[in-house]
């Protein structure tokens, strides 16, 4: 156990250069973006003097190295600066929006895994059966329909025509108040507060966007589960288990499925990362106040602080995610250890 802790720490240490690299690259890249934020934020009718004032206020009149030193100094104090387009400190904004995106993504992934993994297993154990065909249809549909289209179609049917879904205006309808903030995940916070009415309100809001994202992520998980299961089922140890007369469930779930988990976990990590990216469209369609739409809006207006903060937060998130997946490997397969 102590060995594992040591390796985790060394892994975190290895992530440091990555983060430093991200800081430098985002700083340079945002400055290389076309457009002059001072001019943009001065407004259309501004004159030269007021643009100059704004440039000074934003610190853009200093040389690039100076700006970088100031930026790193602020960063070390935990200050990511203030976004000019939203008028809020970037840290506050990220703290509010990241949980919104994560809640949506995780719910979608749970939903997606709940459908895709059993379906993949079924398809693998009964190739050619209805489950196999259903798997194929779902996968093709999920991949070929763009998320914004699925989202709009779901809204049209379930909100506009049937009136079953709540109004698609974000995380909570305006009749609810946000639950007291603990994790920023409304479902968790409402449950912690014992406020089941708000929990139900938040759950109703998240269904359609989560289903939209889940449909999109179904395909890779389903395909990988099926392929990995097929491979595991044809492996020697499964044949041995069968020959030893173990029951079918034990063979499939205890041995084959357990070994098929590794590629599924790897895929999940990848799916998670591209889902956070694909979120942007879903967030726009469902007015979800997430991190993707924040980053895109900031990028369009050359809002340096917001873009840098976003990229940095994502980099840290992925470092953490990769670490978590590596640890999950060792739990699933004891043969895999960290190299020291």
């Amino acid at each position, binding site marked *: 156990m102590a060995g594992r802790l040591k390796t985790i720490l060394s892994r975190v240490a290895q992530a440091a250069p990555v983060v430093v690299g991200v800081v430098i690259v985002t700083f340079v890249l945002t400055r290389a973006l*076309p457009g002059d934020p001072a001019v943009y934020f001065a407004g259309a009718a501004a004159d030269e003097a007021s643009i100059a004032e704004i440039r000074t206020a934003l610190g853009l009149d200093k040389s690039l190295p100076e700006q970088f030193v100031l930026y790193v100094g602020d960063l070390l104090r935990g200050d990511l600066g203030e976004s000019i387009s939203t008028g809020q400190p970037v840290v506050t904004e990220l703290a509010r929006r990241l949980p919104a995106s994560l809640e949506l993504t995780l719910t979608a992934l749970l939903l997606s895994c709940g459908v895709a993994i059993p379906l993949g297993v079924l398809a693998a154990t009964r190739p050619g059966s209805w489950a196999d065909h259903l798997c194929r249809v779902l996968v093709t549909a999920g991949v070929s329909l763009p998320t914004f289209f699925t989202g709009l179609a779901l809204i049209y049917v379930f909100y506009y025509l049937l009136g079953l879904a709540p109004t698609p205006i974000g995380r909570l309808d305006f009749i*609810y108040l946000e639950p007291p903030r603990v994790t920023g995940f409304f479902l968790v916070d409402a449950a912690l507060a014992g406020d089941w*009415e708000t929990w139900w309100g938040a759950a109703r809001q998240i269904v359609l966007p989560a289903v939209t994202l889940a449909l999109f992520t179904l395909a890779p998980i389903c395909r990988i589960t099926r392929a990995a299961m097929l491979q595991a089922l044809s492996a020697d140890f499964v044949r041995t288990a069968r020959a030893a007369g173990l029951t079918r469930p034990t063979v499939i779930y205890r041995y084959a499925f357990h070994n098929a988990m590794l590629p599924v976990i790897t895929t999940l990590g990848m799916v998670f990362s591209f889902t956070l990216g694909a979120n942007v469209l879903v967030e726009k369609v469902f007015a979800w106040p997430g991190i993707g739409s924040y980053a895109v809006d900031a990028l369009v207006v050359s809002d340096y602080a917001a873009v840098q903060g976003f990229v940095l937060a994502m980099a840290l998130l992925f470092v953490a995610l990769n670490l978590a997946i590596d640890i999950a490997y060792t739990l699933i397969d004891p043969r895999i250890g960290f190299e020291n």
Partner: protein
Amino acid sequence: MTQSKTLPGGFAGSLTGASRRRFLQMSGATALGAGVLPFLKALPASAQAAETLVVVTGQTINSLDLHRTGTNRASYQVAVNVYDRLVSFGTKETPDGGLSYDYETIVPELAESWDIAEDSITFHLKPDATFWDGKPVTAEDVRWSFERAVTVGGFPTVQMKAGLLVEPSQFEAVDEKTFRVKLLHPSKLTLPDLAVPVPIVINSEVAKANATADDPWAMEYLHQNPAGSGAFKVTRWDPGQQLVYERNDDWAGGPLPGVKRVIVREVPNPSNRRALLERGDVQINFDLPNKDAQELAESETVSIFSTPIENCIHCVGLNYSFEPFQDPDVRKAVAYAIPYADIFQTAAYGRGAPMWGGDAAVETTDWPRPFPYETDLDRAREHLAKSGFASGFEVPLSISLGLADWMEPTALLIQENLAKLGIAATIEKIPGANWRTACLVEKRLPMHLENFGGWLNYPCYYFFWAYKEGHLFNSSNYANPEVETLVDETLHMPTDNPEYAPKIKRLFEIAIEDLPRIPLWQPALNVGTNGATGYEYWFHRQLDARGLERS
């Protein structure tokens, strides 16, 4: 003035913290008689009870202080609803049965009367006007707020300057309730400029209490915490999501608003905004795309108001620094080649007012006015043949990606017709963040689309910004000594001066002949309502919630 019965107790307070608990107790007693859930049970009921009005918009409010650097256009509505000015504009009916602000009439807001002298305007404040915290509105508050507007730089300072409000020393608090503006020289623009959203009156005591040495104007504090005397207070602001206004029952600025609470919710996707409106889940959809406005115009449940935006024209700019456009025949050839009607239908879905095919003779000072050009390829060819560029030329036609919704279809249609004359236009798309620099500051785009609109509704004001040499919206590098003189003479001249109309007509004639800008159409602001009345169009193109009622 209509005031509906208010819900018990807690609703008037803030919805956070202690008052939320108070609210739960209060409404619990009336709605369910049980303590925990009634917030949810009570609010929809109240929403039906003509108390609450929900507005959806695609824009993001990024500050509660208009004077702050970087405050965007959508945030101006906070200044309108939450703060008062000394004066405001009246209301008139539009031809289609809607309401519009009336540029001709200035009405009291915080000032109950004013005396105009040769060198100053003296305002007498309403004796009963108070800020939300109960402090009376004094002349010193007005003076401090105006000094702030002319000092902080950026947009507020530029806008104040348009009304010749430049120096802090121009503002004087004569006594508790008397405020005087000294005029640099008399101008018809000064009084209307005091009715635009910029010269708001802030509670200077609250602001000073929250000012610091680095931040003497309390920019940081007022950014998040408005301190005004206006018709609504902000009870909740979730940036990027929603803003909740709550009525100020002690408002002295005008008739008390018809609704107790207005929720402004941001929904980026236009189809969703439309669905919400059609289903009646929201009462107002502010700033609909032209396409939705056109399609919903026939709807029975939804009312659509499309008001042409005053003093605003979508036009084609022909840059005089580009050699072919120095030839008057080339400019006229382009003006006759533009497919105006197709553009109006494709890019504007017929919303707004045509700006082509007008009378050749200039009879009135109405502005915007249709120019006497229309699509006539034969005349276009004649003009081109007469010019020094009979065999055509190549020209980039620049558009902003930030305004691609109307610029892109417009540019494509123009490109197609210019090709018929032998003018090869290539469409150049410029990112929104670069557009202003390229188009307005460097003025380096030979042929481009432009859409200046002036808040102060006078033709001379439009010409001041768009036709004077070196001025910001003169993206065509146009320079004409006669225009310079005429604009300087008319800008501050009262409109009833007998010299005014002839000079303005002369300006129109020059603009029609010289064509640095070819008008296409006057755009419209589209607003859809379902279950709300009292929507009024304002030149600032933001929601004025003060006249709204549930129906």
